[in-house]
């Protein structure tokens, strides 16, 4: 947890690094210092050893010189030996006892010579006795015989005087007379002073000194327990090898000292003794080690202090970072409204804080923007959905069955490639006996196409009553769509008008795919001449194609979404496959069967390739039997008109049309025919008027087709009614008025060379009034 903070980690690392450096430097310094100290100790100890050796030598020399002088003096004055010994003993306190012993004469009769021995007694007084009177004659003893050969004096082995309870060592000098040893001076030297000298040496703390005799035994030692013992073999070996004055021994002989020791030795001149000074290695380094430890401790404390300062400084510096990190989590949660640490500083943290603040604002703006875009997108999507609904709403239902006599049935399907599309189909009853149907495809896709489609479908429905025929409808539509069509969009449209009584179908196409006639034999492509597409050229004409549907025949209208449906290899479905697919449909299949079959085949062909274009299919099936129309042709002469009128009345009577309706028809026909004959051919040419009668069970429909000049009775001026006819100068328009009033419905269309008037008479109700 603690290490997650940068401050603590940095402090720790600084501490660790510094400690490492400190330790390295410390170790280096320590080793250098140790070497220095060792050298220094070597020098000091060697000097100490040398001076101690000198001191001991001086003391010994005094003894030796005294003994030698006594020997010289006593050689001539043997008799005064005792006083001399006494004087000497008093003068030299290092000597415990002095003996002057002489060689007895060769003749056994002679009494042995007086051999005085003077020694100190416990109270400090001197005692003397004659050694020659001892029970054991001295002249046979080793020390005497050995001493005789020491003309220059020699130190004997130390021994423990039993009588005096102390360690003694003899110095013997031969008394020479006439070049011949006659006796010896034997000095008993106590070793107490040696101990004192060793003890008073200015030794380093913990060091101890010793003196080894020539045999390697300890003459003196700071540890009294070792006196008289033999020196350790390693020590003796080192000393014997005459190496440097200083030598290191891994283990000291002295039990009081542990660890390695340095031994410094110096020979004591005049003897074969060696003085040794032993300094424990630990002791040498103790001081520097202590100082080093102190330094280390202080250094560590200082480092801890530094680390603490770093910790606090960084923590203080980085404190805003923690806050920023916290705020960043806020940002991640989408909460942008929060306090930031104050940014009075101008360092990196200050800049970071400022940037963070700026980022927050930018982010807020960005988020707002994003939300706005998202809302916009959603709105657009919902608008598109609504547009889709509206477009679907523009289309009539997918199924239409002639409700009156079930003579025809229609099925349609429209599949937009996108939410909204440019394909359209529409159908509606123009009047009770005429059914308009159309299928179209706008040049583009998407919303522009959808708008154009809506315009087309709406205009078509609005213009149809005026147009009356597919050809007129296409022309009117074309004019309307050309107006203000700067974007040069266009629509192909196949338009059909079905006579719901007879199954007569009039088709006109504005650059649309040719329809297919199915139901009798192989499907047949009705490839008639088409006009230009709608919306581009104002002066386009749309030739009509007349087709009579036979019972069970189905007319299939479609858009190029079918023929241009592509599979993965960009291969199009094509008209051949379309015809092949339709050929599979059994002749008695329902209308929907054609659509299902074709759509299913196209789907299988396309497989899972994307739908590129809108697909529209419309199937119109004729179920009714063909109805025989009654047609009366009338020449443009009045007499002929009335003959025709009589024929018509006769035909209507045969068709069981009631008399009141018959006379209505006659009245209207007379007025219109007379009018046509009188005014329709002003150039005097002979014309022909066709009267087609459709007597139905509820209505009588009459078509009046003449090739006279254009005249729309619906547009003629209505006479001023009421008023007295007799008051008028010119009595006109009455007949047209009558005809318009009596007819239940009247439609006028003008084809290229003929007027086409559709009249409908509805049977009066039971009460006699015509609805």
């Amino acid at each position: 947890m603690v290490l997650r903070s940068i401050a603590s980690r940095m402090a720790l690392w600084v501490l660790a690094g510094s400690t490492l450096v400190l330790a390295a430097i410390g170790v280096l310094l320590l080793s250098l210092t140790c070497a220095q100290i060792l050298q220094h100790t070597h020098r000091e100890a060697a000097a100490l050893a040398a001076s101690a050796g000198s001191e001991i030598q001086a003391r010994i020399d005094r003894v030796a010189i005294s003994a030698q002088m006594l020997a010289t003096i006593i050689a001539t004055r043997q008799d005064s030996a005792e006083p001399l010994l006494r004087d000497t003993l008093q003068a030299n306190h290092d000597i415990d006892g002095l003996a002057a012993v002489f060689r007895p004469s060769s003749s056994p009769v002679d009494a042995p010579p007086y051999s005085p021995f003077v020694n100190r007694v416990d109270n400090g007084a001197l005692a003397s006795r004659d050694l020659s009177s001892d029970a054991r004659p001295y002249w046979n003893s080793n020390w005497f015989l050995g001493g005789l050969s020491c003309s220059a004096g020699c130190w004997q082995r130390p021994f423990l005087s039993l009588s005096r309870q102390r360690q003694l060592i003899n110095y013997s000098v031969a008394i020479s007379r006439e070049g011949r040893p006659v006796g010896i001076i034997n000095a008993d030297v106590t070793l107490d002073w040696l101990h004192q000298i060793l003890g008073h040496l200015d030794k380093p703390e913990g060091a101890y000194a010793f003196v080894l005799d020539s045999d390697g035994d300890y003459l003196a030692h700071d540890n009294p327990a070792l006196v008289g013992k033999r020196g350790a073999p390693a020590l003796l070996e080192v000393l014997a090898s005459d190496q440097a004055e200083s030598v290191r021994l891994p283990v000291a002989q002295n039990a009081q000292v542990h660890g390695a020791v340095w031994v410094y030795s110096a020979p004591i001149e005049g003897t074969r003794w060696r003085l040794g000074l032993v300094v424990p290695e630990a002791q040498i380094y103790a001081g520097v080690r202590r100082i080093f430890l102190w330094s280390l401790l202080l250094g560590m404390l200082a480092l801890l202090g530094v680390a603490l300062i770093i910790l606090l400084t960084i923590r203080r510096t980085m404190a805003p970072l923690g806050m920023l990190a916290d705020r960043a989590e806020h940002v991640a949660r989408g909460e942008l409204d929060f306090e930031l640490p104050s940014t009075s500083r101008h360092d990196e943290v200050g800049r970071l804080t400022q940037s963070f603040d700026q980022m927050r604002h930018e982010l807020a703006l960005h988020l707002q923007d994003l939300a706005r875009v998202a809302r916009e997108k959603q709105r657009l999507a919902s608008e598109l959905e609504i547009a889709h609904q509206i477009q679907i709403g523009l289309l009539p239902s997918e199924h239409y069955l002639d409700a009156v006599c079930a003579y025809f049935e229609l099925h349609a399907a429209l599949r937009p490639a996108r939410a909204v599309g440019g394909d359209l189909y529409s159908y509606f009853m123009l009047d009770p006996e005429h059914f308009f149907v159309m299928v179209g495809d706008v040049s583009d896709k998407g919303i522009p196409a959808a708008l154009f489609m809506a315009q087309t479908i709406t205009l078509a429905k609005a213009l149809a009553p005026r147009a009356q025929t597919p050809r007129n409808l296409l022309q009117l539509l074309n004019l309307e769509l050309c107006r203000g069509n700067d974007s040069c969009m266009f629509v192909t449209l196949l338009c059909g008008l079905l006579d719901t009584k007879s199954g007569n179908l009039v088709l006109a196409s504005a650059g649309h795919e040719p329809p297919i006639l199915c139901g009798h034999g192989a499907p047949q492509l009705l490839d008639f001449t088409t006009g230009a597409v709608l919306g581009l050229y104002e002066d386009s004409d749309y030739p009509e194609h007349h087709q009579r549907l036979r019972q069970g025949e189905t007319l299939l209208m479609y858009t190029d979404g079918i023929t241009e449906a592509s599979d993965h290899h960009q291969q199009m479905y094509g008209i051949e496959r379309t015809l092949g697919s339709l050929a599979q449909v059994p002749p008695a299949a329902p209308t929907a069967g054609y659509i299902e079959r074709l759509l299913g085949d196209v789907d299988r062909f396309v497989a899972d390739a994307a739908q590129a274009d809108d697909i529209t299919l419309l199937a119109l099936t004729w179920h009714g039997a063909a109805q025989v129309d009654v047609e009366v042709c009338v020449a443009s002469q009045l007499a002929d008109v009335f003959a025709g009128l009589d024929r018509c009345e006769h035909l209507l009577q045969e068709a069981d049309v009631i008399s009141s309706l018959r006379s209505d028809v006659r009245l209207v026909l007379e007025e219109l025919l007379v009018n046509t004959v009188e005014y329709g051919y002003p150039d005097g040419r002979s014309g022909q008027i066709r009267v087609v009668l459709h007597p139905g069970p509820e209505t009588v429909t009459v078509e009046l087709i003449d090739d006279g000049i254009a005249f729309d009775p619906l547009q003629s001026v209505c006479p001023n009614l009421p008023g007295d006819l007799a008051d008028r100068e010119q009595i006109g328009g009455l007949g047209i008025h009558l005809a318009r009033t009596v007819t239940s419905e009247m439609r006028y269309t003008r084809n290229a060379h003929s007027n086409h008037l559709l009249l409908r008479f509805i049977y009066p109700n039971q009460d006699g009034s015509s609805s």
Partner: protein
Amino acid sequence: MTLSLHSNFSAPDRVVVQVGGRLDAMTFGELDEAMLVLLPRLDVGGTVVIDLAGLEYVSSAGLRSFAKIRKSMRARGGHTLLLNPQPQVRKVFDIVKAVPVNEVFTSTQELDAYLDRMQRQITEGDSDA
């Protein structure tokens, strides 16, 4: 069926013309010609009663003939009265509204009553004068 005409002078100032059959663009000429002969024989201020009981059918041409009769009678200070129009004729009259309703009578009694009333008005008017 063609037009049939019968005229009968019940008084020097009153003639009853019975029109039967069809009065259309084909036959209106006959009526026009007959009236052209008949009307000058009527006294000034006389009355023409056109009995339509036998008229099955009339078209605008017939209406125009009636209008011509009324026009010429008015010029002579006389009256034109229509009697007994059949349904088709009445329907056409109703549509065109070209004939004053008070000049159309559905029965002879109605006509006689009207003529008596008119007669009294004239005599009272004469005594007033």
